[in-house]
């Protein structure tokens, strides 16, 4: 589809040339959209004048500080970190596409939860495809959120903390929820729930520290027209008008390039396979709404998995098993006998190289089949 006011990529490229090519622009499925359609690819309400002035002050101070020598408290942080490659493992879930709905906050927030669930367990293959639809159309609608209103990450991740969300398998996302999806009555039996939401806005070193130790962080920023044509390099606003506010997940950083690594929700046809780099302090990416979660608890069956390890101390009911693609799970048990019975079943499965299917609630096994 060709919008009558589509992005003039050639004009963007000419402007970049005058600035010695800080980044590369190219045609993509977004540059062919009209301005109205592009606005629907966003989803964060722009700040009012007063708030905008505050954000600008923060950005100016941040950019000034970045020109100075590294702060002492930041000295312990690595110069670069990428959750897509930590010791050769990626803890970032796949690139999604919000399509024609201003639901970017749900995608940025769920990306934070998915990445945190994997990274906190150091389990890159953990089943952690959570439902953006439940967060946006389910919880968001209870406070008046629609595809047209947009949202903010703190209230979204507060819902994720207080109530939790189901998995994508139970409520798949479509733009505008045209599939008529809803959370099944039993969704609480298969859900993800954040252990807490934390505001890291305007705290660059804290954002970096959180990335290296816990997981991704949301980043909201003002989108200008040229951003839709981003292909590679470190984005900085070059040309075009203000189009709206947008939310992504920050999944890493690179001090040498003075840039955040972002995971967008515009499909793999945008940027570098759906990812991009955006300069520190640019368009309020690190001074507007940076929210993360402290951890993610899950209720889920493991499906057929092998037991890889066992652990115990002398404490009461403190047997644990390390399950393939899941990590450490505490063996529950309302009584000592139940605990020992489940632990014995799991160890027997390990010894026989048999499969187990265990139901765990927030990291504690409640039921186990071994076969």
């Amino acid at each position, binding site marked *: 589809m060709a919008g009558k006011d589509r992005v003039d990529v050639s004009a963007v490229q000419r402007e970049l040339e005058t600035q010695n090519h800080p980044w590369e622009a190219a045609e993509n499925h977004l540059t062919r959209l009209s301005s109205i359609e592009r606005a629907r690819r966003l989803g964060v309400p722009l700040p009012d004048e007063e708030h905008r002035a505050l954000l600008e002050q923060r950005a100016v101070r941040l950019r000034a500080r970045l020109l100075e020598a590294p702060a002492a408290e930041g000295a312990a942080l690595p110069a670069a970190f990428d959750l897509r490659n930590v010791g050769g493992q990626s803890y970032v879930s796949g690139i999604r596409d919000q399509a024609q709905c201003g639901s970017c906050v749900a995608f940025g927030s769920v990306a934070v939860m998915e990445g945190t669930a994997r990274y906190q367990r150091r389990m890159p293959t953990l089943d952690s495809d959570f439902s953006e639809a439940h967060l946006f159309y389910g919880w968001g609608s209870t406070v008046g959120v629609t595809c047209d209103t947009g949202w903010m990450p703190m209230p979204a991740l507060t819902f994720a903390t207080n109530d939790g969300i189901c998995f994508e398998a139970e409520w798949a996302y479509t733009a505008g929820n045209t599939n008529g999806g809803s959370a099944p009555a039993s969704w609480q039996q298969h859900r993800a729930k954040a252990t807490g939401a934390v505001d890291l806005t305007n705290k660059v070193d804290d954002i970096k520290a959180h990335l290296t130790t816990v997981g991704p962080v949301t980043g909201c920023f003002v989108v200008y027209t040229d951003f839709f044509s981003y292909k590679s390099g470190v984005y900085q606003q070059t040309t075009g008008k203000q189009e709206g506010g947008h939310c992504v997940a920050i999944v890493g950083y690179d001090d040498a390039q003075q840039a955040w690594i972002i995971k967008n929700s515009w499909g793999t046809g945008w940027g570098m396979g759906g990812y991009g780099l955006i300069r520190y302090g640019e368009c309020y990416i690190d001074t507007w709404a940076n929210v993360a979660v402290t951890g993610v608890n899950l209720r889920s069956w493991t499906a057929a998995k092998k037991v*890889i*390890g066992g652990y*115990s*101390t*002398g404490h*009461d*009911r403190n047997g644990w098993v390390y399950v393939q693609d899941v990590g450490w799970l505490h063996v529950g048990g309302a009584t000592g006998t139940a605990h020992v019975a489940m632990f014995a079943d799991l160890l027997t499965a390990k010894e026989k190289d048999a499969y187990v299917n265990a139901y765990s609630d927030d990291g504690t096994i409640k039921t186990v089949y071994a076969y």
Partner: protein
Amino acid sequence: MPSKTTTKSTRVTARSTASTDPRPDHGVSLAVTADAPQPHPLSDEELRLLVGDATQVDGASAAAATGPAPTMEPPQAATSGPPASAGTPITGQKVVATYAEQTNRNAWAYLATAGWKKLSDLTDTGSTTMTLLAAHARATGTAPYVDENPAGTIGTLYVW
């Protein structure tokens, strides 16, 4: 008395526990030094390690709150070092024998070179799950990661 015998003449370097429970009969199957430490009054640190720091919780939810969580990663995927240790780590030694008798919480494991080690007798389920783990290591021929606390008992077991 353990039924398993071994011809290995092994010097037992383990310190004994303060327990007066029956011990494996070293003289029958496994050599033991005559200067094994005798029971002694426990220091505050030893008591702390034996009792643990966790607060006892009543009811069905107690299990999740009473003991430390594992921190070790599988050897084949480990990106970090050994787990945090409260005592003396023992690694690379297979379990070659196990022992238990009718006294409560009196289970032992024989490590290839370290010799007989009593499994923590802190709780019923702790002693039982450690017995299961030690037996599993024995059955699979796996060398467990063992953390021996100052009282000479095995306080932590990992088996991969």
